């Protein structure tokens, strides 16, 4: 049965190769080929899943060894895949949501002349992501890790003729590379500590080395996770990544790739368990990011950027949970899966709205759309209820568990983390209600947009996208995937949560401990619901009762900072970009004058070359070079003769 793992990866890889090298004759069929192979991969995943269910809980690990990748003295890296409950969960999420988004893209990208290439990139992403979660060692994981980074780069920059898209793509890759540095160093540390970086031997011999080494490895893994999962301090790329086509934002920058950091931490649980200091840092990163993302999400008027802030914040929840150790691993993954459903659904909904609104993304230019796009409204609404944790829906189960686990960490830390997650839940309810109200309720602001005026140069004129939009529902090929995801948003949580099905499924891989929160679980739930209601209420007071101005008011200092992503880019620009530019510019100068000059000068001092160097420009140089070579030859001859005599 393990022989099915490689074909599972090979299907989308083949799709990528065929679509990217196939040329224009595949333009007509490209999207069908890409979608068919994604679905094929999902079917193989389902077959494997059925196979795993047929086995005992402790016997659900399949390993497929393909070939030796880099065999060098003392160093062994194999191309080998491991399918267990953890990777199986991801395989189903990736190929399932992935297939839906392929279908959706058939409609969404219909008028793009480069649609074939888009599907090639999507297939490439699927293959790389599957390698990431199925790799049996950290080096192969690294291949998938950077592979998804490449796919993300290509897809963010898909509309490369837009300079903003090209810049965003480059930024995403670069920030991720900083994280990748962490992963490389972690792998090197594993190699020098354990002599290997395959999962089983490394995670199995954690007990034989000191806590210091393990903390270092864990922190480096965390750095990697921060890059891929857009956690503070490597969060700055995610908002810009929304430059990519919306299906990409749904699949890569919400449902799957950005959760890879959580996968990495959970997969390396044994290392983190033995490094409590590193775990503390993980929880802090998660807590900071969940608030950071939520605040940014409150201030953005661009619907996709608001959702991106939300993604960052929700992954913050997962990372925080993963930092709690065995109490949190399974819970983190559960939230990851439910989030995959509702956030993908929300993004597809946003895409559907944009599709009907001439690609407008500013929510201040929406309003009252529920009448025009009923299916989008309902599916988006269900996703909205799921993410704010409306009782009974997916997010309610998974987020509630995280909040409980955070309190269960115990002590002051537990209270702090628990409070942060609670506050976060309130802000989530606020910003999501804001999105909902601004988009689907209120007056139809898109009917009377201001014309361009010199007073407000920032305000785009309405005519920018071709006059007053005519909002309309999207075609079936787009709405059906949204409906399927809405089902997941509604029912997945209950299905996973009731009877602790999900936790028991993952337990053999991640281990599971029941936390003991200082207050009863019921109290936590009640508090969560209360906070949620407050958040919704505040948002309604602000955006529901009062009309939404089409031009954003100036806002408080915090609002203005939040609109600029809490000044992350300003900070990076001043510290890294400017500093770097100065450094490289001065180095170019130094290289030209100093290094060149000193070496030439030394040579001159030694060999009296200076006068000859000066003649370089005036034609004697060639004769000089020839004479110098002749001199060398003479010298050789003379020395050899001396020797012979």
């Amino acid at each position, binding site marked *: 049965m393990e022989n099915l793992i490689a074909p599972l990866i090979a299907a989308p890889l083949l799709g990528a190769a065929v679509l*990217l090298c196939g040329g224009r004759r595949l333009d007509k069929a490209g999207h069908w080929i890409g979608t068919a192979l994604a679905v094929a991969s999902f079917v193989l995943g389902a077959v494997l899943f059925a196979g795993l269910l047929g086995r005992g809980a402790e016997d659900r690990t399949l390993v497929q060894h393909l*070939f030796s*990748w*880099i*065999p*060098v*003295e*003392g*160093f062994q890296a194999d191309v080998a895949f491991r399918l267990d409950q953890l990777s199986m969960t991801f395989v189903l999420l990736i190929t399932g949501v992935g297939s839906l988004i392929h279908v959706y893209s058939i409609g969404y990208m219909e008028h793009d002349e480069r649609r074939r290439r888009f599907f090639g990139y999507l297939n490439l992403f699927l293959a790389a992501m599957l390698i990431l979660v199925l790799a049996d060692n950290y080096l192969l994981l690294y291949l998938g890790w*950077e592979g998804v980074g490449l796919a993300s780069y290509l897809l963010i920059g898909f509309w*490369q*003729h837009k*300079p903003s*898209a*090209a810049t965003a793509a*480059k930024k995403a*890759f*670069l920030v991720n*590379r900083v994280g990748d*540095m962490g992963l*490389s*160093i972690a792998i*090197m540390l594993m*190699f*020098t*500590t*354990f*002599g*290997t970086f395959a999962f*089983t*031997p*490394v995670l*199995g*011999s954690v007990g*034989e*080395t000191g806590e210091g080494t393990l903390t270092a490895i864990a922190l480096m893994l965390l750095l990697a996770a921060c890059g891929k999962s857009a956690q503070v301090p490597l969060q700055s790329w995610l908002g810009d990544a929304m430059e990519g086509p919306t299906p990409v934002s749904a699949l890569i920058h919400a449902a799957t790739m950005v959760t890879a950091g959580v996968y990495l931490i959970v997969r390396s649980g044994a290392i983190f368990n033995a490094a409590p200091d590193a775990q503390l840092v993980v929880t802090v990163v998660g807590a900071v990011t969940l608030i950071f993302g939520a605040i940014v999400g409150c201030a953005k008027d661009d619907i996709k950027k608001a959702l991106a802030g939300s993604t960052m914040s929700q992954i913050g929840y997962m990372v925080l949970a993963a930092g709690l150790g065995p109490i949190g691993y399974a819970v983190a993954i559960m939230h990851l899966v439910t989030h995959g459903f509702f956030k993908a659904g929300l993004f597809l909904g946003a895409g559907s709205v944009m599709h009907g609104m001439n690609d407008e993304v500013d929510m201040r230019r929406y309003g009252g759309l529920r009448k025009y796009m009923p299916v989008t409204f309902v599916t988006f609404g269900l996703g909205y209820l799921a993410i704010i944790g409306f009782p009974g829906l997916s997010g309610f189960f998974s987020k509630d568990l995280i909040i409980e686990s955070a309190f269960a960490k115990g002590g002051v830390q537990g209270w702090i983390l628990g409070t942060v997650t609670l506050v976060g839940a309130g802000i989530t309810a606020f910003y999501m209600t804001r999105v909902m109200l601004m988009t689907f309720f209120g007056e139809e602001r898109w009917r009377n947009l201001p014309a361009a005026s010199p007073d407000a140069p920032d305000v785009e004129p309405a005519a920018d996208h071709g006059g007053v939009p005519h909002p309309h529902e999207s075609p079936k090929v787009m709405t059906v995937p949204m409906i399927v995801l809405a089902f997941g948003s509604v029912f997945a949580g209950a299905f996973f949560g009731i009877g602790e099905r999900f936790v028991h499924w993952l337990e053999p891989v991640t281990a599971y401990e029941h936390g003991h929160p200082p207050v009863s679980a019921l109290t936590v739930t009640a508090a969560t619901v209360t906070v949620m209601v407050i958040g919704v209420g505040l948002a309604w007071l602000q955006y529901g009762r009062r009309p939404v101005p089409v031009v954003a008011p100036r806002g408080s200092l915090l609002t203005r900072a939040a609109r600029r992503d809490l000044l992350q880019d300003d900070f990076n620009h001043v510290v890294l970009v400017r500093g*770097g530019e100065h450094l*490289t510019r001065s*180095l*170019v100068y130094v*290289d030209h004058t100093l*290094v*060149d000059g000193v*070496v030439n000068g030394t040579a001159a001092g030694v*060999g009296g*070359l200076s006068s000859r*160097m000066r003649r*370089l*420009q005036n*034609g004697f140089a*060639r004769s*000089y070079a020839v004479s*110098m*070579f002749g001199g*060398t030859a003479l*010298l*050789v001859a003379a*020395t050899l003769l001396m*020797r*012979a005599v």
Partner: protein
Amino acid sequence: MSFPLLTATAVLPALGAVATAAVPAARRTAAKWLALLVSLATLVLAAVVAVRFEPGGARYQLTETYEWIPAFGVRWELGVDGIGVALLLLTALLIPFIVLAGWHDADPSPSSPPRSSGGHPKENANNRWRPTQGFFALILMVEAMVILSFEATDVFLFYIFFEAMLIPMYFLIGGFGDRAHQGGEEAAATQRSYAAVKFLLYNLAGGLIMLAAVIGLYVAAGSFSLPDIVAARASGELEMGTNTERLLFLGFFLAFAVKAPLWPLHTWLPNAMGEATAPVAVLITAVVDKVGTFAMLRFCLGLFPEASKWATPVVLVLALVSIVYGALLAVGQRDIKRLVAYASISHFGFIILGIFVMTSQGQSGATLYMVNHGISTAALMLVAGFLISRRGSRLIADYGGVQKVAPVLAGTFLVGGLATLSLPGLAPFVSEFLVLVGAFARYPVVGVVATFGIVLAALYTLVLYQRTMTGPVKPELAKLPDLRVRELAVVAPLIALLIFLGVYPKPLTDLVNPAVRHTMSDVQEHDPEPEVEAAK
């Protein structure tokens, strides 16, 4: 006596060079085809060498020894180990691509009179002047000499070819420069001759110092034969004073460090690569410079193991400086070809780092790096050359939006760039990671600092791609043609090779591993043991 296969791999391109040069002036195209065929035949011979070579067998195989200058003990002594075979293959493989890529680089331009070549007087403008024939003959001549440097096991023989290859290189740089020059033909000629002379002087200076060391070695050891000296040193028959060994080491090392090139002896490379045509730039950095790093591994470590260890700290620091400095300067470049040159300096830092950390992973990685860097730089630089020849400018600022009009060109350029930044799945990742791991295992701090190189590599590569290929199409580029069949025939196999060796480098590692074991025993070093013997 068996067929002298190794000699043949060098004699064939040398004879081919003579034949190409002799093709009559009017038959330019015939000369090109002849050069291409000769280079392909050489590739076949190199493949035969690789097949005949047994990785588990003796250290030097297919050996040939002939008396040459008995009075001085100089012998025509050839032999290859796994490292030599790998580099022989690389050289033989790249030359056909270089020839094909430079197909029109030496065509006499219709508007201007034939350009002067190197030392030849300019007035040679009658139709007896044959630049095309000369260009391809010189390339083949370089190939012959590089191949002999990889095969020579006689130190003096090596020295001769190490130096002699400068002559054809000098004419290639000085005589056939890049036509894309913003300052016009006159400025181009001046820059070109400056670059060529700088190249020659740097390398001759290094060579002179090495010559003294070669003679010194003969005085100390009484022989030029590398295997004999190494064996004598290992068995204790040949004692060498500490100071003698160190001085001799320095003499060899300096010459190789100029050629490699190592910071701060690198400044000739950006000039040479910038002014030469793209195929010649590839010849410099992908082929000729590899002789420098190869020789460090074979001669410095083999002949002077103790001195090599003595010098290690300094060499490692210089290598680290090269890695970071080269990358930072690449970020600051405005000229596409100079950018690639500085990137190469950074990569040579990695190779030298891998050699001198004295671990199996480092040295295997360094050898693989030489091969992979050759292929990846060839891919990137040749596509860059195709682009430059279309627009007639090397300045990054003159481009923008190319992917819209020439998607295949942009796509292959991106793959070349991704290889340069060592994306996993492409060949350079394997070697770069091995070097990093090998360095980290012995010197963790060195490993960590070198890792910064991977971020900077992403920076200079992606910035280059963004500025040239993305954004709105510049009006001057609106009619830019995409890659032609000949150009695709150059790039596609290189890309296929990058992917193949990234996924399945085993054929190469099998070749290299035993040779690295020998080198490690030469320097009497063992890999650091892991802290925990993890259950396998």
